[in-house]
């Protein structure tokens, strides 16, 4: 094992060398929050950490609401936190001007760590225990790869340095802001961009110097100005995420020799910082008269979606990325990658949000990386809604129905690169028909429309048509295709004409994926998966497919489009296009039948897959991309009268229709930390054939009843202390006992809301959460926290509250 660094050690000149090194352990995102806490603990164990405490102060009412939300997340992750009045903030940090703030969110376990020294300790441990050889001042000039014909990928073979060539089976790129540049040498991409974060060190300041301490006062995050103030001995570091986004290409970062300070401490551009100075002085008057001893445009890594880049690169096998990792989550992220390489998947946490395979090719271009990094940089301390949409780089991928959807006033959500209608303005009459109104609190109403409830109820009453073109379709063909498909899947691949709904497991028996496998021919299986997981699933296929050439994988996602048609009138409507028997006999649940659809005189070949993710009978209809518009037009023409067909948005498909039935979603309910027994997706028997994760799965089954069960709950009263009806957003809100305690299982997994939404057909807000078996009994009364208030909830059971006997599906 060899460590190469272009720079000297222990400080090679990267971002760690100038980082402010503090960890706020509260984040709304589970991966970031838990890895932050886990990393903070690793620093503590090494005695390279001081619990300084930290306070996020609010200057606006909106921020005070956000602090309530952060209290909720703190509760979920088990982090001690308190809301403070301005006077209490002033008491803890006497140099804060209480007159400019409305309150604070205080977290005593906010820590300041020595990240460079921690790196040295880890390195030394690896030298001692694993014989690591360390080569600083060694520049990587090239990464050599070889063709791997069976997968169409490259495989890494060697690293060429200015001091020689090293053959390597595995190569990990942990090169911080330079990572994409290094990955590019191998033909791979690590989508991140070096971005400036301005920081000024001002001092000396007596009140700080008198503490005789590196850090004695809590760190203050001035959230509404996107700034922080962090004591550093006798001076104060003032950092900003408020200035204009300043991005650099990794090739333009100066070398250690060329840089005045270090490569990632770029020259300070004071004009960008001036507004922050004024705001900092407002909050802490003493800062105004302190000298600016040191100020930099420090570089850090930003990705297109603000999440790290971990795992194997999708282009080059055995080339790994451990990049876009900040000090606050460094040790935890390192553990994720190490476990991934060792065990085949991370163990410490489900890391799908950080998985580098999540990016589609369009998301790996500099244009995309730069635009998105620029867009989210100022949201670093922003108040970001869980459903918040991007403004830049829209319409990267659109379905064949896009122009029709635009004409119907579709409100698009972007799912990675794909535009999907969330609801249609043309359905505004449905909201009126069903008497749906706007929500009382703007936050609950944001990125939501009453129309989506109207679309839902219309589907249940008549029928709806959902654009599912964003489905990712990967065709496995060849003599080994079926065997390989079985190797990936827990459930047995069915005969030709059948689809199998199945998990894919990690080697540890947790969920990697949840999808359908369509047996289209003797030697062909089509993998159909969701748009958020397409990249990860395609990588998983390539990673595991046989090397003997017996299987070929082809991405058909942009050759085949899918329309979903569901509702009581769906069979009758579809019957207007075909003579095929559409009853449960002629088109049984789970079957795929080939039909010719008469679309306004044009014959369109279609595959009808009888399935439902919304709880009403109907089909996923697969047609050639170019035939899609004809099908859309035919359904629209025949459907309105008398079948009541409406184009229906993803708000129904992904949330309200789904959770009324208690259907699980990969990445929400289904994560690698949970197994099929816990998720309620285990079948009575296990197939004979081997599959990835089988051993672990069998072990879990042998242990008997699982400790936790995925449950559906209903909110019994959502009235808050101010008399307003609140609407949960499904952002990891903790489920509490009636005493208000959080609920954990023996693995430390917390019961939290994985999906929340309104169930229009049951008239209640519905939540999904894993609960210990004792609490999973239907009718159990519990509470949920939302915006730092608790509300009564009742367990429905492991299934959904709507049509529990599936009578509508079978009709």
């Amino acid at each position: 094992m060899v460590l190469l660094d272009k720079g000297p050690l222990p400080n090679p000149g990267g971002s760690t060398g100038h980082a402010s090194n503090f960890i706020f352990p509260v984040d709304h995102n589970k991966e970031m929050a838990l890895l932050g806490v886990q990393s903070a603990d690793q620093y503590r164990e090494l005695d390279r950490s001081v619990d300084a405490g930290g306070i996020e102060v609010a200057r606006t009412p909106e921020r005070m609401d956000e602090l309530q939300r952060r209290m909720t997340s703190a509760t979920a992750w088990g982090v001690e936190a308190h809301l403070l009045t301005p006077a209490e903030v002033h008491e803890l940090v006497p140099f804060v001007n209480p007159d400019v703030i409305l309150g604070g969110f205080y977290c005593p376990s906010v820590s300041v760590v020595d990240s460079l020294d921690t790196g040295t300790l880890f390195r030394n441990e690896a030298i001692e225990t694993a014989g690591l050889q360390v080569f600083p001042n060694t520049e990587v000039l090239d990464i050599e790869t070889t063709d791997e014909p069976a997968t169409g990928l490259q495989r890494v073979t060697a690293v060429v340095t200015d001091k020689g060539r090293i053959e390597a089976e595995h190569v990990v790129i942990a090169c911080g802001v330079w990572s994409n540049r290094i990955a590019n040498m191998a033909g791979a991409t690590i989508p991140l961009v070096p971005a400036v974060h301005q920081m000024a060190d001002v001092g000396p300041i007596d009140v700080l110097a008198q503490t005789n301490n590196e850090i004695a006062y809590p760190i203050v995050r001035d959230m509404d100005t996107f700034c922080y103030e962090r004591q550093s001995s006798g001076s104060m570091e003032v950092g900003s995420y408020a200035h204009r986004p300043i991005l650099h290409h990794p090739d333009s970062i100066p070398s250690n020799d060329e840089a005045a300070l270090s490569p990632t401490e770029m020259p300070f551009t004071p004009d960008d910082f001036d507004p922050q100075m004024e705001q900092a002085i407002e909050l802490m008057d003493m800062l105004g008269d302190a000298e600016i001893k040191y100020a930099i445009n420090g570089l850090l890594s930003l990705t297109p979606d603000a999440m790290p880049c971990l795992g194997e690169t999708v282009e080059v096998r055995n080339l790994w990325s451990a990049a876009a990792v900040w000090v606050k989550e460094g040790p935890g992220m390192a553990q994720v990658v190490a476990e991934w390489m060792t065990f085949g998947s991370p163990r410490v946490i489900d890391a799908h949000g950080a998985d580098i395979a999540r990016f589609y090719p369009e998301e790996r271009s500099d244009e995309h990386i730069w635009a998105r990094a620029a867009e989210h940089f100022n949201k670093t301390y922003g108040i970001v809604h869980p459903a918040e949409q991007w403004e830049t780089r829209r319409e990267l991928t659109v379905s064949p129905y896009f122009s029709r959807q635009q004409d119907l006033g579709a409100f698009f959500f972007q799912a990675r690169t794909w535009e999907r209608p969330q609801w249609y303005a043309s359905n505004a009459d449905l909201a009126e028909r069903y008497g749906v109104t706007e929500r009382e609190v703007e936050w609950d109403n944001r990125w939501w429309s009453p129309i989506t409830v109207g679309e839902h109820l219309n589907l249940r009453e008549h029928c709806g048509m959902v654009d599912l073109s964003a489905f990712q379709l990967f065709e496995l063909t060849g003599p080994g295709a079926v065997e390989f498909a079985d190797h990936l899947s827990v459930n047995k691949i069915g005969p030709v004409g059948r689809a199998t709904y199945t998990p894919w497991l990690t080697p540890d028996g947790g969920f990697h994926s949840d999808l359908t496998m369509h047996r289209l021919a003797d030697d062909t299986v089509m993998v159909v998966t969701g748009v958020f997981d397409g990249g990860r699933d395609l990588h998983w296929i390539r990673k595991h497919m046989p090397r003997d050439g017996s299987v070929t994988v082809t991405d058909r996602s942009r050759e085949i489009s899918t329309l979903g048609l569901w509702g009581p009138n769906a069979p009758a409507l579809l019957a207007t296009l075909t003579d095929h028997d559409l009853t449960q006999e002629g088109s049984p649940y789970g079957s795929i039948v080939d039909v010719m659809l008469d679309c306004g005189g044009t014959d369109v070949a279609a595959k009808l897959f009888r399935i439902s993710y919304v709880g009403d009978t109907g089909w996923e209809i697969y047609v050639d991309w170019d035939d899609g518009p004809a099908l859309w037009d035919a359904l629209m023409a025949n459907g309105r009268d008398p079948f009541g067909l409406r184009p229906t948005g993803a708000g129904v498909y992904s949330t309200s229709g789904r959770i009324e039935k208690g259907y699980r979603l990969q990445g929400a309910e289904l994560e690698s930390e949970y197994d099929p027994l816990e998720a309620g997706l285990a079948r009575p028997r296990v197939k004979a054939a081997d599959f990835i994760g089988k051993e672990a799965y069998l072990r879990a089954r042998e242990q008997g009843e699982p400790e936790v069960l995925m449950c559906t709950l209903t909110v019994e009263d959502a009235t808050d202390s101010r008399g307003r009806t609140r609407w949960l957003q499904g952002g990891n809100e903790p489920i509490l006992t009636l005493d208000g305690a959080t609920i954990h299982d023996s693995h430390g997994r917390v019961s939290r809301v994985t999906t929340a939404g309104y169930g229009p057909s049951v008239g209640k807000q519905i939540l999904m959460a894993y609960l210990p078996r004792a609490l999973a009994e239907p009718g159990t009364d519990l509470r949920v926290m939302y915006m730092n208030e608790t509300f009564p909830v009742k367990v429905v059971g492991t299934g959904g509250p709507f049509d529990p006997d599936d009578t509508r599906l079978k009709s």
Partner: protein
Amino acid sequence: MRILVCVKRVPAPGSKINITADGTAVDTTNLGFTVSPHEECAVEAAVQLIEGHGGDATVLTLGAVEAGEQLRYAVSVGIQRAVLLPTAGEEWDPQRTARAITSAIRQMESADGPFDAILFGNESADSGGFQVGIRVAHALGRPMVNGAKGLSIDDGIARVQREADAGRETYELPLPAVIGVKEGINLPRYPTMRGRLASKKVEVASIDPADATSGPMAGAVTGPTTIALRPPPERTSETVILGTGPDAAVAVVDVLDEIGVL
């Protein structure tokens, strides 16, 4: 007391300085800019004189409009006024620079009275000419000492100390005088945040340097003119590693013996 301090905007490179493709200038991509270290001390000296004696200080530079950043730096640490002699950004040789500054000083002095002291840095960090301040002093007919590591002004006399091989020399220059300041004379302060914000509000006066350096005033010959910049040849000697840790002491002392310094 009225003080003028003259500064030059220079890039702040690392240990390796890149040169532009045409070979005649420093590639300043990704470099910050500053004033020469000696000039930081000259600015500090000016501020200290004003703090001690009252009065006001002016900072002057000849350079592109971007050099306003350096003027504001000086204002942010306590200089009151700023004057820019705007150029198109090209390098001016020392004679032309000195003529332009001299002319600007004459203009300023005829309007507002003489400067008691004019401070320069000992030499600029980039071109290292060692002469602009001296040329200006001569043109103005004022006494000038370069290399000042100590400066005080009393009773119309500027007392200047400087280091020489034999010890510390003292000069007593009758005012008005010109002094070239050397790093080490003081520890320059950094701008405060308030100072920085205040500096943004100061209006930078502009005096066109062209009149002083063109036409009949231009003089016959000036220089030097840069043909090319290049890095110095690397010293290529192989390093002899004498050992690792304290055990190497024996080998080190052997070398000292060989060299003959034991």
